[in-house]
């Protein structure tokens, strides 16, 4: 599903954000990428999406060799998974429904298919009643749920989230995590980058810990702090 082989990322300004990162995520797993701010979590996510190019090493995601991918192939790589960000990234002048439908329009899904899938995705995140609302009319947690509906509406087998609860209060954060867990239960591989202790501790999932770009821990059913 995901494989990093000795991946390093050196930014132009000399910052080394990832050093020799190697790990593997199998189908159906739920994985936290943790570490303090600046430890390289977002860089790792960006490298998977090929928003940034790894300086060294090989990355495989969903049968794509990301590190050798042609520019024109990037959209197809990104369609093979869903992404959720800290800042939601919804289209402000589209309704909730249209925001979710948008992800399907991009892949040129049949209108009939769109009309079938979008309500299902909205139901899963419990936002059926808000289909006609605009993002600014929603709370942060609701906006993030719209983003999650958009991420899963094409039924990807992988969902990547970078600080999905970073802008949310603790209770709402737990709600979002429950939703991610539910999506994972349905067979989708989930990778969540976060620096929030309480959500990691509440889930007891696999933890990959970064420190200054180095993977210092990769633990099954781990906590935020290494207690082993």
């Amino acid at each position, binding site marked *: 599903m995901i494989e990093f082989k000795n991946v390093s990322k050196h930014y132009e300004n000399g910052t080394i954000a990832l050093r020799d990162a190697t790990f593997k995520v199998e189908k159906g797993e739920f994985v936290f990428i943790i570490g303090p701010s600046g430890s390289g979590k977002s860089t790792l996510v960006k490298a998977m*999406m090929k928003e940034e190019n790894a300086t060294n090493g090989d990355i495989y995601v969903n049968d794509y060799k990301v590190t050798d991918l042609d520019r*024109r192939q990037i*959209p*197809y*790589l*990104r*369609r*093979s998974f869903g*992404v959720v*960000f800290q800042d939601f*990234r*919804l*289209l402000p002048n589209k309704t909730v429904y249209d925001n979710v439908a*948008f*992800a399907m*329009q*991009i*892949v*040129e899904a*049949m*209108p009939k298919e769109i009309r079938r899938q979008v309500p299902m995705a909205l139901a899963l995140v419990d936002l059926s009643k808000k289909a006609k609302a605009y993002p600014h009319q929603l709370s942060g947690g609701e906006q993030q749920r719209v983003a999650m509906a*958009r991420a899963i509406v094409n039924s990807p087998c992988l969902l990547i989230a970078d600080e999905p609860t970073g802008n949310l209060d603790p209770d709402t954060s737990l709600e979002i995590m429950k939703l991610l867990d539910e999506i994972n239960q349905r067979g989708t591989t989930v990778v969540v980058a976060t620096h929030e202790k309480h959500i990691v501790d509440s889930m007891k999932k696999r933890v990959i810990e970064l420190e200054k770009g180095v993977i210092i821990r990769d633990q099954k059913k781990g906590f935020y702090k290494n207690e082993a």
Partner: protein
Amino acid sequence: MKLSTFRLMLKEGIINIYKNKLMSLASMTMVIASLIILGLFLLFALNLIVNIEEIKKQPEVTIYCDHELDEEGILNIERAIKEDERVREYTVKTKQEAFEFMKDILEENKDVLEGYSEEIMMVSFEVSLYNPENSPAFVETMESIEGIWRIKYSQEVVEFITRLVYWVNLISIFIVAILLVISVFIISNTIKLTVFARRKEVGIMKYVGATDWFIRWPFIIEGIVIGILGSIISYILTSYGYNVLESAVNSGEFKSSLIFTGMVKLDIIGSQLFIIYAIIGTIMGAVGSIVSLRKHLKV
């Protein structure tokens, strides 16, 4: 592209035109100005060319015999004309006919001819050649024959108009090229506004896996719709103006003038003109968008 996707993008493009009303209007005005000026030059050149064709069909060469020339000498000249292979047809104007023609022209003032007879007039031949370009050589041959007073030919007019068409074309290409560049520039600025307004959206589209073309098309459609609307308006304005001019000219004084044979009816050329407008309008719109996308949107 699927039909449903196309519909989506068309809607998007039109909404954006509406959102940038002012700039869209400015772009359209430029498109209209360029197309109308282009159209004026095209129509002007076309009318000149059609008139040249008409003039070429007119008897190009008129040969006047010395008025003292005897029967024998006139027959000699006629034989030379008849036997020349460049001649398509010719007619003889006798002294009598010339005298009548003169009287016609003078009308009320024909008293001035009082006391004169047709003897003062000359026999003339109106000669039509197969190829008007041969007329200078033909004239040279004729000039070597005894008893010719003067030879006139319309080649001069033809050459003048040909030169005029050449210059009209050259100047129009130049002016139209400048206008096209300005239009493309203004369209690209209009699209730039949309691009800036939608930068964030474009970023999100990329994250969700939109291809570059999926992102480009709505902007290109926006440009093309501006171009096509501009060309439709240009055509309406041009055809209205042209029809007014054409009916005034073709019913008026000009019509009877010797060299001018009248303006071409728009029915004959209207559809071609519209197609030219539509194609150029579309290209301007598309190029304007692409220029803008290349500059402001790295897709």
